[in-house]
């Protein structure tokens, strides 16, 4: 909490799970879903948040992902995107008691191959 | 579109559901919400009726309020305002099993494709199906299961009965 001031708070990102695999994904700067939180498009201003939020009903009426929602993130000094809540930290990495599973297991997650 | 158990569209269906501010018309086939029906019975406004009459049960209605009025009805419709609300299944069963209703029993509202089999089994005989896909694949849903462990309203022979059938 002490270094809170050095971070930019109140950034929002859009996340969901892929329909077929269930994998956690983030809406990316490229305008598609990515498995890597570092690709996430961050909304800072009210307008940016509104644009990101407008994506939700589009996705809910589609076939790619399940349960899209916005959640708060922050950026470290080196630009790394960090989820703030424990829940989103765990979603971004994998179970804390099985570090051999989930995204943390070593694969470099990136763009989604829907056919995979 | 209202379908019967065999997926046939009801050609004769001329019933309209009476909205709150619609006037009662004794020469038109109409479906009245339960409270309005009971009021109309009470005040005699159905006395001159020539057209068939239906009643609509909402989830919170008391099924047994119809016990003395079944003879006046050509149709009982049961509303599923949300698929999650399963009270309509109880209405149907009580009507078939305890009140002895043998006429048309229609499911209306949020009639979920995969609930059709359960509706059939609790005694519904017609189904207001809205989506084109659901109409097209109606038979798959209504006959999803060949057998049943229970017999709550459609008179079928249950698995238990088949197991112990004599001869």
């Amino acid at each position, binding site marked *: 909490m002490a270094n809170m001031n050095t971070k930019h708070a109140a950034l929002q990102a859009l996340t969901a799970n892929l*329909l077929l*695999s269930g994998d956690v994904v983030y809406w990316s700067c490229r305008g598609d879903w990515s498995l890597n939180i570092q690709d996430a498009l961050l909304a800072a201003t009210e307008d940016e948040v509104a644009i990101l939020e407008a994506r939700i009903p589009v996705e809910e009426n589609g076939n790619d992902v399940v349960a899209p929602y916005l959640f708060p993130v922050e950026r470290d000094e080196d630009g790394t995107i960090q989820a703030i809540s424990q829940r989103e930290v765990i979603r971004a990495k994998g179970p804390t008691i099985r570090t051999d599973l989930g995204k943390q297991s070593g694969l470099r997650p990136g763009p989604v191959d829907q056919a995979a | 579109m209202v379908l019967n158990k065999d997926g046939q569209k009801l050609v004769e269906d001329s019933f309209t559901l009476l909205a709150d501010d619609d006037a009662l018309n004794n020469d038109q086939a109409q479906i009245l919400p339960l409270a309005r029906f009971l009021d109309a019975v009470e005040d005699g406004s159905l006395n001159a009726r020539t057209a068939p009459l239906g009643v609509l049960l909402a989830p919170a209605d008391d099924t047994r309020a119809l016990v003395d009025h079944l003879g006046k009805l050509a149709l009982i419709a049961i509303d599923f305002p949300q698929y999650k609300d*399963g009270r309509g*299944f*109880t209405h149907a069963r009580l009507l078939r099993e*305890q009140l002895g209703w043998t006429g048309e029993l229609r499911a209306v509202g949020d009639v979920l494709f995969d*609930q059709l089999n359960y509706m059939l089994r609790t005694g519904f005989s017609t189904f207001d199906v809205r989506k084109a896909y659901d109409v097209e694949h109606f038979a798959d849903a209504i006959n999803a299961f060949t057998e*049943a462990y229970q017999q709550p309203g459609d008179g079928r022979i249950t698995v238990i009965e088949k*197991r112990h059938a004599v001869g």
Partner: protein
Amino acid sequence: MYQYDQFDNGLVSERVDQFRGQVERRTAGNVLEEEFRPHRLMNGLYLQLHAYMLRVAVPYGTLNGGQMRMLADCARKYDKGYGHFTTRQNIQFNWPRLDDVSELLKDLSEVEMHAIQTSGNCIRNITTDQYAGATPDEVEDPRITGEVLRQWSTFHPEFSFLPRKFKIAITATENDRAAMRFHDIGIEIVKNDAGDIGYAVWVGGGQGRTPVIAKKLNSFVPRQDLICYLEAVLRTYNMLGRRDNLYKARIKITVNETGVEEFTRLVDEEFAAVKQHAYEQFRLRDEEFSRVAAFFSDPAYESLAATSSTFEDAKAKDTRFAAWAATNIAPHKVPGYAIANISLKPAGGIPGDATSEQMDLVADLADRYSFSDIRVTHEQNLVLPHVKFDDLYALWQALDHIDLGTANLGLVTDMIVCPGLDYCNLANARSIPVGQMIDARFADLNRQHDIGELKVKISGCINACGHHHVGHIGILGVDKKGTEYYQITLGGSADENAAVGKIVGRAFGYDEVADAVETVVTTYVNGRDSKEETFLSYVGRVGLGPFKEALYGSE
């Protein structure tokens, strides 16, 4: 155990086809998630934090070797090589793909298993005593009634869209090992003065955010009337249960808001109506009960001496085995046999988790030593219910070899722990690592045995899947502004002396929980009259005072 006939098989395989169709409609875009969701839930398929989770039913907690092997195969083929046994005697797979689930269910159907009604607002998997059929003190094998009710509740067209989920547990002994009094309906098999077997029916128990001990609604329902009676209870609940508030929708709230007397009157009235109009369809027929009962008749036990020198010798020469025998075996109704408990709580492990290799080995051991009979317990362990005393040492050695021989049944490290925030979409805090910290703190097995019976139960949110309300020590994870805190309750009990634990004081941080539990345990050990005074009796005698003092001092 029960074997499917053509009808049972037909229904389960039609369900697989139905689900396959539902998935195809979803992936083809014919239905949206909103409509698909109830279908996948009715098939036990949840979306959790990292992936889908499939919950497979283990009816009344009974598996045979072939079924266990199939679960192991499914874990390898469709998941990541492990499964998680739950407090509902079920098993969960944590990583299946949506487009694999139909195949997985098809594989399961080949061994007479399914995921029907493992979620959704319907009658869930019916649970019972894990010692059923083996324990000396039961009125009759509760699995017979369990199977009869499994069939009655499967695809019940009237009761599949209830106000909320509905859980039934059955016991047939005075020792309640099934937490019967914490279920929507608890069924206690009893014998009346005339010697007839019937059912005492308890209603409205549950945990969650409002823990309630069930009330006895009827002390003797004759066997042939059981289904009619349950129809009456379920119908009364279906019509009366609240649908305006998710948290007030369980039958425990309906009973409390209606009043037990009025609820009883309504049920009795409906019961009379059901009997009048539908008795023939819903009478529990003798011939059907007998047909099912035949599947649960005794296996071919050998005539054995009550004592075994092989067993006694092994205990004398192997202290680790002796420790296991002291905690993990229970008396069997047949001389020369024992009930063997397999702890799924190895040191440093994840409570309830078993790898495919472990499942395969348990299947082999069950085939060799226990008539291919395996049970899943609501405390997330496994049981081989019919093992000869002569075979126990060989069994334990084989178990010990793959980390399943831990001698901690009923002890402080035999915790119930929900998946918590490491997996679960509803959780507020992690549960598993908290359990692991406590486990590490009490790693010394001698100390555990010295402390004696102590049930620690951990939930990662107020839904109470980790049964914290009924833990002797209960731990509830809460979220305070994104940080995990843990509330401790003391004195809960899930057995025949059902009690809800009381909150001891302010919550502890993630890193403080193990210390707090240690303090509680030390307070008990130092304060007890003798080793005969259990933790629960001690809490009953002294109340929360000494614990508060030790935990918070003059705060």
